[in-house]
Each structure stands twice: as C-alpha cells, then as structure tokens.
C-alpha cells in the first residue's frame, strides 16, 4: 500500500466572489494525479494554499503526517511547485537562475540538472526572454525535478507545449513516478494529457471537490457511443448525453447500465474530456450571441 505523502484536510478560503469549501484529498507516493476543473474552479488557489502562499481561513495541510506550516522549510525542500513556466528575471541567463535556485536545496542534483537540460534540449546560456513559452515550461520542470522533489505540484505544466514536447514531459512524469516514486499533482486544461498518464483524478467544481477517484472509476459509469446520424431516429435520444452530430455521424455518452440497448452502435471507453464536459455542461444548449 503506497504511503500517503500529502493530505489536504478541510481547506476553506473565502473571497468576495469565490470560496474554497472543505477541500480535502490525499496524495499517495508514486501516483500521478490530474487536478481538473474549469477556469476559476479553485485549482491554483488550492495549490497556493498547500504551499502556504495563500493563507487559508481554516483547514490543515499535512506533509508526511506532520503539519506543513510547522515544518515549512523541510516540506518545501521536498516539494516542487511550478506555475506554468519560468517567467522570472527575463534578462537573466537560465544558468544564473539555476545557480541561485540550487543554493536553496540541500538535495540539488547538478548531474541530473545537466541531464534534464539535454533531455529538454535547453541552452542554459540563453536568457529567459530568449526562451519560447514551451522552453520556459521545460526549464521550470528542470528546476523542479533537479532537487529530487518527492512531490511535484504543477499548475498547467503542459500548457504552451507542442504535442511532441508534451509527450516528452508526460513520459518524464511517468518515469519519475515509477522509478523515483515521486508523487505528481498536476492541473491541466489539456485533458488528453491525463488520459495518457494520470492514475487518479481530483475534480474540483466551484471550489468544492466534486470527485476524487481513480481514472478507471471516473470512467466506469459511462460509455462513448457513435454511429450514423440516420439511425438516431430509431433510438431514445434523451438517453444520450453530450449528443453531437457532424457530417452524418453522431457521438455522445451513455450510461453503462444502458449498454445493452445500444449494442448496434460503436461503444468505447469515454475520454476524460468528454466526461468533464458532461459534468460541466451536460445536455445544456446555451444560447449563443450569434
């Protein structure tokens, strides 16, 4: 049974127009968690509360069973946090930022740092402003990985990356989770990334944890359905959610319990993105301004 490394217990934070409400979850060693939800659902605020950048109104963060705030420096030494890419000190060379960062970590691994630079094809002699968005993300990951973090909290680490770079980063996540038993919690709007590498999903909706389960369980209630649009008239369309018709074909989601009624159609495991859209939008047809 993997050890629990980080526990978030009943986290509350109230703003004028938004509140985190009793956010609780725990992270286990060597597991990759996808932290998903709409923009403004509370993902970044939760990550900032964990790292003590935002003062929560109530709640507790436990790192390896100990209070995070009381052991802040030790905990932060073992947790890597990254918001997007490295966008600091644009006129400084990446080498300088790495040198300064390294002084703060007892566990900084210079050899690993150089290997990661090579792996991500980064030139540390370049200034940050000379990096593309993707390179900034990769450099941020290089810094976060080079101090041998036991837990990585990453806020949209794959945004701005091209498909090849995203794949490299996701491969990297899988390897460090498997080989180094690193726990990774990452938020993303590129939900297909989670299909590739996440073990667990933590779904946050309007400041509350909506679902916290394994990817398999998350997908267990639904099936993706598709077929010819002509056949739609023969079936009860109300039982298909997220019904989408395009170029003579339809697709949507059905409950797994209804599977036998749709045996003439192509049925597949749904993607996380479909399920997320189903949670957030269901069958609603919002009026558009055009």
């Amino acid at each position: 049974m993997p050890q629990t490394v980080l526990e978030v217990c009943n986290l509350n934070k109230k703003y004028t127009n938004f509140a985190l409400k009793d956010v609780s979850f725990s992270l286990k060693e060597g597991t990759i968690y996808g932290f998903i939800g709409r923009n403004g659902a509370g993902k970044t605020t939760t990550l900032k509360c964990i790292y003590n950048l935002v003062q929560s109104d109530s709640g507790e963060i436990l790192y390896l069973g100990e209070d995070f705030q009381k052991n802040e420096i030790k905990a932060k030494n073992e947790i890597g946090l990254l918001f997007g890419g490295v966008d600091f000190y644009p006129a400084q060379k990446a080498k300088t930022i790495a040198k300064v960062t390294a002084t703060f970590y007892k566990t900084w691994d210079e050899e690993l740092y150089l290997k990661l630079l090579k792996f991500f094809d980064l030139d540390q002699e370049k200034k940050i402003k000379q990096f593309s968005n993707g390179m900034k993300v990769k450099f941020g990951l290089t810094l976060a990985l080079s101090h041998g973090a036991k837990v990585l909290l990453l806020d949209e680490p794959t945004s701005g990356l091209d498909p090849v770079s995203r794949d490299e980063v996701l491969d990297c996540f899988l390897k460090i989770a498997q080989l180094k038993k690193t726990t990774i919690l990452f938020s993303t709007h590129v939900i297909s990334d989670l299909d590739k590498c996440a073990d667990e999903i933590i779904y946050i909706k309007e400041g509350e944890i909506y679902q916290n389960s394994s990817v398999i369980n998350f997908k267990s209630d639904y099936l993706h359905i598709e077929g010819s649009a002509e056949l739609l008239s023969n079936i009860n369309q109300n039982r298909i959610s997220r019904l989408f018709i395009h170029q003579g074909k339809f697709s949507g989601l059905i409950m797994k319990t209804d599977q036998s009624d749709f045996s003439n159609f192509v049925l597949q495991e749904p993607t996380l993105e479909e399920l997320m859209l189903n949670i957030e939008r269901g069958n609603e047809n919002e009026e558009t301004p055009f």
Partner: protein
Amino acid sequence: MKKLLFKELRLCLTPQVITFICLSALIAIPSWPALTSFIYTFMALVIIFPVAIANRDIEYTSLLPIRKIDIVKGKVLLASFIELSSIVVSIPFALLKYFLISPALGEASQYPDLGINLVLYGIVLAMCGFFNLLFIPMYYKNPFKTAKSQLLSTFIILILTMAVTAVFMVFPSASAFVNSFSGLALIIQFVSLGAGIGLFVLFNFLAFHFGAKKIRSIDL
C-alpha cells in the same frame, strides 16, 4: 540568511543600483552638505522594488524552500547591504575631502555644515534604518504596487535630510563643536556613531518584523 542575500545580489542588484551606490562618492564635493550625498542611496532603494515587481521576483522567491516571511528578510538584507555599501564607498572620498580638498580650498569651502565626522555617519546609519522602517512595512501591505510607499518614504527622508542639514547651517556653533577634537566632542562623535549603529540594527529588525506581519496576511 547567506542564501537569501546571495539570491538578492545575484538577481535583484541592477547596474543602476550600483551606480547610485557609487554616487555617495559625491561626498567629496567641496561646499556641498555631506548628508545630501546619501540621498542617492535612497534613490537606489526605491528603484529595486519596482524592478523586482517587473522581474516577478516575489513569484520566484515564494517558490523557494523558505518561509513566507523570509521574502521580507531578503529585501531587508538587500536594502541594508546597499546602504552599508554606500557608506563604505563614501569613506575614502570623505577622507579625501577632509584631508586634501577642504584644506586646499581653505576658507572657501568652510560652509557651515555637519561636516565629515562620526556624527555624520551615525546620522546616516539611523536615517537608513529609519527609511527601511518606513518603506518596507508599507510596501509589503501590497507588494505588487510601490508608488505610495516610494513617494511617502522618499518625501519623509528628504524632509529629514533637509532638517538635519539646516540645523547645522542655522547653528554654525553646533557644526564647529562636532567637528572639533575636544574631549567632549570626541565622546559625542563616538556615542553618535554607536547610537547610529544601534538604531540601524533596531530599525531594520522592526522593518522586518512589521513587514513580515504584513506579508503573512496577504495572498501571493
């Protein structure tokens, strides 16, 4: 503390700040109130904070394995470093003025002024500490904006500089006394320097204390 200072010096010390530090050499200018040459030090201090905002310094620092309050400690250390560097830079030029320039110019350079002495450095140290105490807690009320804290602190320190300079101009006897080598004057000089050092340490400690209190309550 060493790591924080290293980070501040490596990432936040700009060439403009170094130029301003060097401007304390202006203390050597004859007939110029010695205290005003340190105004540039305060200019250096108000420069580093908006530059840090532009460089997203606080976002970077907050990701490091340090306590939230250490962000303030780093900046207090940097401010103190800049102030002490200015003082160190000024010393050879102060000696140059005292031993060479002023004697060479004779009466022409003998404006009533605080002059070059330990009282001057005591006052400068106290004023530097006082500036940090004014500026840093005010800045950390909202570390993403600097205008109000910059303007207010600079204005107060300018008034204070003018007031101290004026006192010695209005009362030339006070100036003559602190610049003499009588036993009492020497005691006052050493006491002033000691008091200046003490106030510098105390004010910086308080600047950190109140700044830390402010940063604890804000969301980064």
